[in-house]
Every structure is written in C-alpha cells, then in structure tokens.
C-alpha cells in the first residue's frame, strides 16, 4: 500500500481536505466548529499554557496504517534534519517547556533520533516517544530500542488498536499484531509497564472503523485483562483516541460512505468540557521542516500557527501564548464525547 501522496491521491493535498470538510459541513447544514466554540464563549480559542513541545521528526514509517493522519509510510522521505533538531534544542534551552513528545512516522527511523533524545534528556525534560512497536523488530539495528528508551527514562506511547490480530491487522497491516506483541514482550523485559519500575508504557486505542471510542476506563480494563491472560503483557494506561477526519482516515470515511454519518456523530457528541480541555491549548507542534502548528492535525492540514514567526528558529513563547488557535471542521474529533488528545480523553 502506498501513501496518498505517492499514489497522487487528491486528498494528499491539505487544501483539498479542508475544502471537502467545509463543503460537507455546508451540505449537511450543521454548525461550523467555530460557531460551536462561540456558543460556549471559547472563540477565539486561546492557549492556557505551553507544557508540551510535540516534534514530528519525519513522515517516514515502516507501516502504512489505513487511518494514518500523517499519511506516513516507507515512501515518505520528509525527515527532520539535525540542524532543525538543534533549533528545537535551542528553544528548549531557552524555555521551561517540561515535556517533549516525539512523533512521526516512526520517529526512530530518523538517523539522528538517538542523538536528539540524548540531548533532550541532558536538558532534563520528560521525553515521550510515540513508538509504533513493530519498528523494534523490523530490523536488528532497532532491537536495542527498549534498552535505549530505558536508559533515558523515555515514556513509550504505542498504538495497539485492539487486543487481537484481526482488528489490529485490518487497520495497521498484515502481521502487525504479532510483531507488536513481540515488541511489547521486549519492552516488558527491560521493565516497561512493570509495577514500580518507573518505566512508563502506555498504549493507544483508536477505533478500527467509523465509530467513536467507548469508555477509556472500560477499554483499559479489557486490554489489561486480555493482554495479560493471553500474552503475559503488562502496561500502564490505555489512551482512547478518536480518529480525526484528516488524511487517510478522511479518505477511508469518504470511500466507505461513512463521511456524513461520522461527522454527524462527532457534531452531535460535541462536549463543552472536552472543548475547554483540547490539547492545542497547552502545546506547540513542530513539523519535520521546523514549521510551527497548534497541533499535529493542523500540521497535516498545513495550518501554521497564527503568529509572525512560524518557524522553530523564530520561536517566540510570548507571541505564541497570545495567539489565536486555528480551528476548523476536523476539530470536532477532539471535542466529541469524552474528548480526545494525544494523551487520551480530556473530559
């Protein structure tokens, strides 16, 4: 399977995605997202803090998941350079942002990934790596990643959309579940997810289809029970994440005839509490080329932050704290039901 970009798909264009989302909203005669925020006095949406610097170090990935909002894959060559990473480090050194969240693609495929993690660790910041698990077993050179993560006390956050092979492989590719289980055993073996180890292993659940996630607490109980009883695997927390209608997931919705009904579900489930707690209010997202965004989804839609300096080299924390966060129809994904963020539910 190729990425949308490599296959020349219309929805590989951010502008085409935004057009489609806005046209669908107009056709369905539903309230634009900004009107929903306005109705609860949240528009314009403003930051509440700057707690997380989420850095997308590249779109290259060993997997081609059907729902990927990054449109990542082996055919994506966009990779953050060491120079841009250094600019990120400069920003961290000049600020007190406590958490650095590394994502991709498979961030470990960036040739400077380990150096970057080491340098962030030297600055005393908490590092999260969004590891797709299979990268650990994809090549012998990645087999020592669990130990590398342990050495730097990295928090590992890994997608596992279900506790069986059928649903997982349908979303993430043939054989992904089996490889994920192998990788989870390797992470557990060095202490990840084990009680009192201090090594945090969190899993991410996202629905394998056009429906919303159920109760995070209930899903976590099921995952813990089945993964322990059937595979002897332990982990800390499960983050239930709603699929955002962007990129390949948007393509799936359209191709399967679910776009209208899915958006309707999200809109009907609009939750003011979740809207107040959206992750874009306390984070900045950095693209592989150093451009700044309100979140990873805005990044994929080419919606750079609304401040004069939009590159990591021009990072101005004061200006960013005064900015207006850009919202559009895809934002309904983060405000539906119990809310959704890179750390799970928000309400």
């Amino acid at each position, binding site marked *: 399977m190729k990425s949308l970009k490599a296959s020349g798909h219309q929805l590989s264009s951010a502008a085409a995605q935004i057009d489609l989302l806005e046209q669908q909203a107009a056709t369905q005669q539903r309230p634009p997202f900004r009107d929903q925020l306005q109705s609860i006095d949240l528009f314009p949406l403003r930051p509440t803090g700057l707690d997380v610097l989420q850095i997308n170090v590249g779109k290259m990935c060993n997997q081609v998941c059907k729902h990927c909002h990054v449109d990542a894959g082996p055919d994506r060559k966009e990779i953050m350079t060491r120079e841009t990473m250094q600019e990120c480090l400069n920003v961290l050194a000049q600020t007190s942002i406590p958490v650095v969240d590394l994502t991709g693609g498979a961030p470990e495929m960036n040739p400077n990934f380990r150096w970057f993690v080491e340098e962030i660790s030297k600055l005393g910041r908490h590092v999260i790596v969004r590891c797709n698990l299979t990268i650990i077993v994809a090549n012998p050179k990645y087999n020592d990643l669990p130990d590398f993560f342990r050495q730097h006390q990295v928090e590992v956050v890994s997608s596992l959309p*279900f506790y069986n092979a*059928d649903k997982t492989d349908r979303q993430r590719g043939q054989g992904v579940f089996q490889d994920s289980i192998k990788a989870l055993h390797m992470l557990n073996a060095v202490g990840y997810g084990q009680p009192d180890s201090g090594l945090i292993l969190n899993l991410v*659940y996202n*629905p394998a289809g056009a*429906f919303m996630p*159920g109760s995070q607490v*209930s*899903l976590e109980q099921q995952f813990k029970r089945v993964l322990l009883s059937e595979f002897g695997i332990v982990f800390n927390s499960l983050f239930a994440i709603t699929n955002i209608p962007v990129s390949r997931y948007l393509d799936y919705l359209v191709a399967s005839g679910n776009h209208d009904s899915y958006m309707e579900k999200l809109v009907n489930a609009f939750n003011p509490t979740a809207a107040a707690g959206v992750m874009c209010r306390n984070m900045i997202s950095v693209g592989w080329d150093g451009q700044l965004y309100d979140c990873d989804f805005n990044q994929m839609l080419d919606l750079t932050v609304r401040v004069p300096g939009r590159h990591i080299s021009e990072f101005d924390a004061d200006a960013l704290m005064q900015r207006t966060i850009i919202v559009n129809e895809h934002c309904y994904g983060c405000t539906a039901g119990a809310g959704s963020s890179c750390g799970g539910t928000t309400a």
Partner: protein
Amino acid sequence: METYYDPADLKKFGQISEFQKELADKFFSYYGAVFAEGALTAREKSLIALAVAHTVQCAYCIDAYTNDTLEKGCTEAEMMEAVHVAAAIRGGSTLVHSVQMMNKVKQVSM
C-alpha cells in the same frame, strides 16, 4: 421509494416526548439507569441489548447496538455469539412448545 423504516428516524427517538413528555422523560431516565455500569458491566449490557434487538427484530435497535458494542470494544465473534444466544432461545422456545403439540397429539390419537 418510501418505506416504513427510515434510518434517520433513529436519531428522532428523543422526540417521542413531543406527544407525551412526562412518560418519555421517565422512560429515558429509566433507560439510562438500566444501561449504566452495575452488577453487569455496560459492555455486557450492550451485548444483551444487541441479542434482544435481534429477537425483537428492531432495525433501529440493531443499528444502535451494533455501533454501541463496537464502541465498547466488543469483537465481531462476541457480537455474533450474542445473536446466536438469541437465536438459540428463540429456536428452543419454538421447539419446547412442540411438547404441547405432542401432548395434544397423544391425547387425541388412538
């Protein structure tokens, strides 16, 4: 083509209060309480609802509880087994009544 069933009507369920608010409010309050976590989990209740939906052959309920069981992380195998439970009870109910038929046959036959 007009049909008796319109999928869009499922979303109008709450509108039954338009003709009788007090009873509708009581019903929806009761409904919410029934499906909350209790001695049974909300997940188990959803699977029961899916099975009953097939027994009463309610298209709205099948739509709603297929979605609900998926949201609650049920597998396709669990969902189909729930429907088989409904089918077994329904089939068993038919067949166990054949004892009445057999009794009657024996009563009236030489």
